[in-house]
């Protein structure tokens, strides 16, 4: 009964979304605001309805009603309740419902905002959100019903939405259970974070389309959606980092990122989203790159849907093993249609999106922001080619050629390094309208020199620590040229960023006669976006240190050890002490080794690498890890089968600096919070204030 009830709600919400689309369109074209209001109210209703459907499914999961196919697929009797509940996003149909539910939450938040000044956007924002929602609900209703039940008929048992003729409800005694690899805290929050990121990017896109349709193509849509974009971006970033952490903890290959097609699918909207976050600032400050911003937001939306499609359709084989399904063509058509319509609208409004200014210098801030965008797009191109190259080469030559992680590292590495450097240099540059009128007719070479000198004047002091770092690294015996370049860039960007804080805070403390730290606090409070951005940059730099460490300096060894024997790696000696085998409460067999770790002959700690075999035969290799800021010692007990307790095979990884990656991600999040924190500025500031913008000042 509950299952039928859930499906009925899904159908009602789907019909409601169709109604919302129709009402918004009619209300707009017939100039009848009450219809638009009706669409708005209908959209508000979708959230409570979907909450009910999601709660219904969660209840079925928690109580283990295996008559429902989805419940059978992702839960089993031995699973703890919190895992049963979070299994909601452990399979395809449930995660599509979860997607729609999050989408409904976000559109509700948007719908409830004050629309006074933006009435004309309303029908179109409703339209775009509802079309997206109707699509995802449609998938649930027509292809992937999470409430489908098992029925026994003459032909056997199969899952149907409605009772088949002569069908008898069939309830298996136990379910398959969630794949043990997914029974990990990181895996419980990783998908929701990613989905939150995906879903909230729909909002900026909806406003962009609204701006294109209504012709109100100034930067209003960008100002409204600035925080949405930041929120989307931080969730997507978090989702990516958590996925990496999960891989590191559970997959037992000593890494965090494997350039798997599905990882790339989540990474691509992040790339365009990051480019978008930067380039909207140029539009706000200088009225330029308007076409570009539209292209970026359209691309991001397409990539978000594409990402959901890749993770959910099984087109590309990857470790994210979800079964194939019929929803592939539906996704393809939806992405194609929305993309074509968006681009058509953009072309239609092309002339009204003309830039208000012109870029003059290659060293002006807007030019460097543009370069940042090009670098992100370059990485996007590299990723996209990597994902589609097997398909392309198969069509062109008949041979299926794939590219692995070395391709991505080799091609994207230089661009990442350039981004790190640019992150340092760009804040030193001036917005290109310093004294536009004087410069416009000047000799181009002369102007470039002035801009470049402006940067160089600010650059030399922070460059000193970078040079010192390089010397220190050379003295430490590091000769890996890529690591030297990477870490020098990291040092330079760190010192410039800190220098920027120091310079501005000192100036303020002198001018306002404030204590330095108070000045720093107030400065950051006044200009959260700028200083939040710098904090994010610092987080990214720390993450870069971790990535350089593990990518360039990871060492590994493997060996079978008898009790008492040891492996030596990177100054550590790992000794095999003993082994125990026991059955855990949830029925899995645990084989656990005790390892003593020594350094320079001194005992440091014990590690317990584990090898679990779940009741269904699914094995899982859990590393024993000793983490410090300097390095991780990552010990795996590999494949216990057929080995006596006297001798066991081990694999040891030494991952230098990897913890900076996780540490950096915390700072990154803190920075985003600073940047996204609501300002005290009145919401009614005139939208076109930019027209009378003041000339550039330090701290602008």
């Amino acid at each position, binding site marked *: 009964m509950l299952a039928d009830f859930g499906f009925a709600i899904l159908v009602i919400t789907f019909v409601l979304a169709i109604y919302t689309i129709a009402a918004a369109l009619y209300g707009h074209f017939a100039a009848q605001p009450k219809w638009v209001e009706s669409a708005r109210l209908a959209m508000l209703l979708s959230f409570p309805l979907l909450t009910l459907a999601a709660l219904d499914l969660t209840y079925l999961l928690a109580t283990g009603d*295996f008559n429902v196919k989805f419940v*059978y*697929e992702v839960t089993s009797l031995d699973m703890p309740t919190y895992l049963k509940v979070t299994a909601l996003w452990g*399979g395809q149909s449930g995660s599509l419902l979860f997607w729609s539910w999050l989408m409904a939450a976000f559109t509700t938040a948007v719908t409830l905002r004050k629309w006074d000044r933006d009435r004309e956007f309303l029908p179109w924002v409703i339209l775009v959100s509802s079309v997206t929602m109707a699509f995802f609900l449609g998938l649930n209703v027509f292809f992937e019903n999470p409430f489908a039940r*098992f029925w*026994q008929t003459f032909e*056997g*048992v*199969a*899952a149907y939405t409605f009772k088949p003729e002569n069908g008898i409800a*069939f309830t*298996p*005694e136990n379910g*398959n*259970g969630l*794949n043990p690899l997914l029974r990990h805290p990181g895996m419980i929050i990783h998908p929701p974070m990613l989905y939150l990121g995906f879903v909230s990017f729909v909002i900026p896109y909806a406003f962009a389309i609204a701006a294109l349709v209504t012709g109100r193509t100034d930067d209003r849509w960008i100002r409204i959606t600035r925080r949405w974009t930041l929120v989307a971006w931080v969730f997507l970033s978090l989702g990516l980092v958590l996925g990496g952490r999960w891989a590191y903890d559970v997959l037992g290959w000593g890494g965090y990122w494997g350039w798997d097609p599905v990882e790339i699918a989540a990474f691509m909207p992040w790339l365009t989203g990051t480019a978008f976050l930067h380039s909207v600032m140029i539009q706000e400050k200088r009225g330029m790159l308007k076409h570009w911003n539209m292209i970026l937001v359209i691309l991001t939306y397409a990539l978000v849907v594409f990402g959901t499609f890749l993770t959910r359709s099984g087109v590309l*084989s990857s470790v994210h*093993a979800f*079964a*194939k399904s019929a929803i592939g063509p539906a996704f393809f058509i939806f992405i194609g249609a929305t993309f074509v319509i968006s681009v058509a609208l953009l072309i239609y409004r092309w002339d009204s999106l003309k830039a208000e200014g*012109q*870029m*003059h*210098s*290659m060293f002006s801030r807007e*030019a460097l922001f543009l*370069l940042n965008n*090009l670098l992100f797009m*370059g990485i996007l*191109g*590299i990723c996209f*080619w990597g994902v589609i*190259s*097997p398909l392309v080469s198969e069509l062109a030559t008949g*041979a*299926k*050629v*794939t*590219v*692995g992680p*070395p*391709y*991505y590292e*080799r*091609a*994207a590495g*230089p*661009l990442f390094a350039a981004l790190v450097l640019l992150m340092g240099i760009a804040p030193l540059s001036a917005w290109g309208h310093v004294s536009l009128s004087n410069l416009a007719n000047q000799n*181009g070479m002369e102007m470039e020199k002035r801009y470049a000198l402006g940067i160089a004047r600010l650059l030399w002091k922070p460059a000193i620590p970078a040079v010192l770092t390089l010397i220190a690294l050379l003295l430490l015996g590091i000769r890996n040229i890529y690591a030297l370049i990477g870490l020098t860039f990291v040092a330079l960007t760190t010192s410039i960023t800190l220098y920027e804080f120091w310079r501005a805070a000192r100036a303020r403390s002198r001018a306002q006669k404030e204590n330095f730290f108070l000045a720093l606090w107030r400065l950051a409070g006044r200009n959260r976006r700028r200083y939040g951005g710098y904090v994010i940059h610092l987080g990214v730099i720390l993450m870069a240190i971790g990535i350089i460490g593990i990518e360039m300096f990871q060492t590994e060894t*493997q060996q*079978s050890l008898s009790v008492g024997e040891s492996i030596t790696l990177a100054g550590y000696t790992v000794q095999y002490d003993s082994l125990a085998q026991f059955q855990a409460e949830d029925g899995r067999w645990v084989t656990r080794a005790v390892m003593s770790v020594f350094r320079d002959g001194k005992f440091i700690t014990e590690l317990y690498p584990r090898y679990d075999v779940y009741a269904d035969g699914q*094995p899982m*290799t859990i590393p024993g890890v000793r983490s410090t800021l300097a390095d991780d010692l990552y010990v795996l007990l*590999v*494949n216990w089968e*057929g*080995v006596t307790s006297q*001798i066991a*095979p081990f*694999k040891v990884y030494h991952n230098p600096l990897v913890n900076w990656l996780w540490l950096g991600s915390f700072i990154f999040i803190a920075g985003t919070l600073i940047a996204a924190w609501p300002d005290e500025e009145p919401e009614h500031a005139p939208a076109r204030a930019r027209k009378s913008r003041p000339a550039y000042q330090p701290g602008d």
Partner: protein
Amino acid sequence: MQSPRTKFILGGVLMLAAVVYLIVSSTQASAQYFMTVEELNAKSAEVQGKNIRVSGAVMGDSVAYDPETLGLSFTVAHVTGNNAEIELQGGLAEVLHQAVIDPSRARLQVAYTGPKPDLLRDEAQAIMTGHLGEDGIFYADELLLKCPTKYEEAVPEQAASEN
């Protein structure tokens, strides 16, 4: 000097050229030829020394493993690389099963050094990266295994046995 526009177009073109260069050269440097066991056997002369990715169904009886030296060898049977065909033939698990029991299938002997992966068992799908030796043995540098997971089972096992 030239107008600002030319300057930026020039910069953009240079940047694009750099990215294209990186993509092309990196593709060439790390391209892997994805082949089936049949294709590999048919073109064994041409593909010597090339970086190849091949997949096949693991023959459970053939697995030999020495935990002391970590030397691992096994034989895989040909399976089609075409997803649509796999679907037609009743899904991956069925295709793998058919491959293993069919004595006329093309086969390939694989050598690998390293711990025996958890999932290396009969009728698993093995995806190997490496090169074909002159002796006809495939020397794998990397070994990935996939078992058709229970996720993909549409019908509960209990039910199937009741019919």
